[in-house]
């Protein structure tokens, strides 16, 4: 099975984010970057499918040069090769524009399966995989926790609200968006890290893919959220704050 995994590099989870001077995005200088969480699960699913059924795992990522480090991480975990869509203006493209870039890179590869994470931890749109399926003319299923290969295609387990699930049968080639938690993530081994250095990373520029980039939806401004509640912050040492909290819960909120 030839599997393409579309991954995204996002700011590290604990990164302190600041709004940039233009108020249109976050200040990216000085940020630490990481592989998007649900994309890590998509990669894991791909690697496990390859271990069971053989084939090839190709990672695909769009973004500026810094994305290279996340691509190497995926290669170190076991992906066979990578395609890097070098694109400095990813933020100016909407979800359709980004999916068009990915689709243009996926098409000539003719994969059996395309996996991606459910949503990114930065923009959180949760649309790229589904749009990608539409652009490739492939069936899809989203929020997938488990993938099984069958004689005719795939049987997948889809998460629904409030602890419900569904299984879905679909033919391949197909696109799946993977939810976190379905598998246990592996770490890159030292050997894997070493091997990754020699694996192929093909760089293709956004211009070479020649897709339309004019957005139909524009992020105009980012701002800090306004508080829904007036939060009383309890200062002091751990002991002082703990004592103050118990006092508040007992006599002010009266919940204990």
């Amino acid at each position, binding site marked *: 099975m030839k599997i393409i995994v579309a991954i995204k590099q996002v700011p590290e989870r604990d990164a302190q984010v600041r709004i940039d001077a233009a108020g249109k995005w976050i200040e990216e200088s000085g940020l630490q970057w990481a592989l998007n969480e649900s994309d890590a699960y998509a990669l894991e699913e791909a690697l496990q499918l390859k271990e069971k059924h053989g084939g090839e795992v190709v990672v695909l990522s769009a973004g500026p040069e810094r994305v290279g480090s996340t691509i190497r991480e995926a290669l170190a975990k076991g992906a066979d090769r990578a395609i890097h869509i070098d694109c400095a203006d990813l933020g100016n493209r909407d979800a359709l524009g980004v999916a068009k870039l990915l689709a243009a890179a996926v098409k000539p590869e003719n994969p059996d399966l395309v996996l991606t994470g459910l949503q990114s931890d930065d923009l959180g749109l*949760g649309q790229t995989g589904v749009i990608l399926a539409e652009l490739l003319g492939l069936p899809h299923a989203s*929020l997938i926790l488990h993938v099984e290969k069958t004689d005719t295609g795939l049987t997948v387990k889809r998460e629904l609200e*409030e602890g*419900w699930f569904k299984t879905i049968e679909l033919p391949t080639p197909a696109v799946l968006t993977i939810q976190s938690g379905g598998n246990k993530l592996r770490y890159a081994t030292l050997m894997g890290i070493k091997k990754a250095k020699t694996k192929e990373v093909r760089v293709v520029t956004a211009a070479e893919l020649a897709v339309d980039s004019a957005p139909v939806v524009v992020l105009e401004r*980012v701002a800090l959220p306004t508080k829904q509640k007036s939060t009383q912050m309890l200062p002091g040492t*751990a002991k002082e704050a703990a004592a103050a909290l118990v006092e508040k819960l007992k006599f002010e909120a009266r919940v204990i």
Partner: protein
Amino acid sequence: MSGIWVVVEERDARVSRISWEAVAAGQKLAALTGLAANAVVVGARTVGLAGEVAGKALGKVARVEHSLLEVYTADGFSLALQQFFEAEKPDYVVFPHTYQVRDFVPALAARMEEVLIGDVTTIGEGPVFTRQLMQGRLNGSYKHTGGGPCFVSVQAGAFRADTVQGGAAEVMVFSPTIEAAQIRTRPSERFRGSAQTVDLGSAQLIVSVGRGIKDAGNIPLVQELATALGAELGASRPICDNGWLPLERQIGSSGQTVSPKLYLAVGISGAIQHLVGMKGSQCVVAINKDPGAPIFESADYGIVGDLFEIVPALTEAVKAAKQ
């Protein structure tokens, strides 16, 4: 162009609560733009649902009906609504932001060269649509600049279902052309993962633990606090994903919805998927090392600091107070 269309979903043969919230959002958008708000129901038998919606202040209620729409599939629903919207040419289409909508609307919008503005929390003059970014740390304001319909989905709880105004709408039927071969996926009936033995929904006190706990070996620290309080232990998704606590203790959109008197969140940053599961709590306490964590936005009391110092101190203070 034909104004605003709200796509309504059913749950147990009734209009789902979040769908009423989407109708409220549609009416708000109607007030802002001066356009008429309408609703559409999709399925194999839509009379009942359409009747329910037709009692509201809407222009029209459309029944998009076909035998192949009995069960939801992304292919079936996309085809049906694409045909309907190409005929109606709406200015805006409003959906509830459900798992079903997330599954097909991005594809439907792309087919019409449009992009869904998803998980919207507020609609302002312009109209400008606000949604959360960076796991709730920031808000982003979006504008639609495309030439086709503007697709929007609204977050659960963001609009008030009880503000939907009553009225009388005209009901119409739309019959899409769908062939069985066009539906490429075959879904099963829905099922529960495992028998639930923990009902957090009725718990009065909940101590909930998140990623900040760092390691499975540290869970007992929080368990001790829960025990001291006489509280149930809950968790955010990553804790259950890692298998550190069973799935039945997960609180949030994919887990349980709770509304205790006290919700004490330890090391939980407060991503929206978690917040929707606990926002009905009467009193929320957040303990987190990051003063910018979004959980503080919805907390009544907050302590910024190292949970490994604060939680044991709090356990002691609770024990002392109970003596």
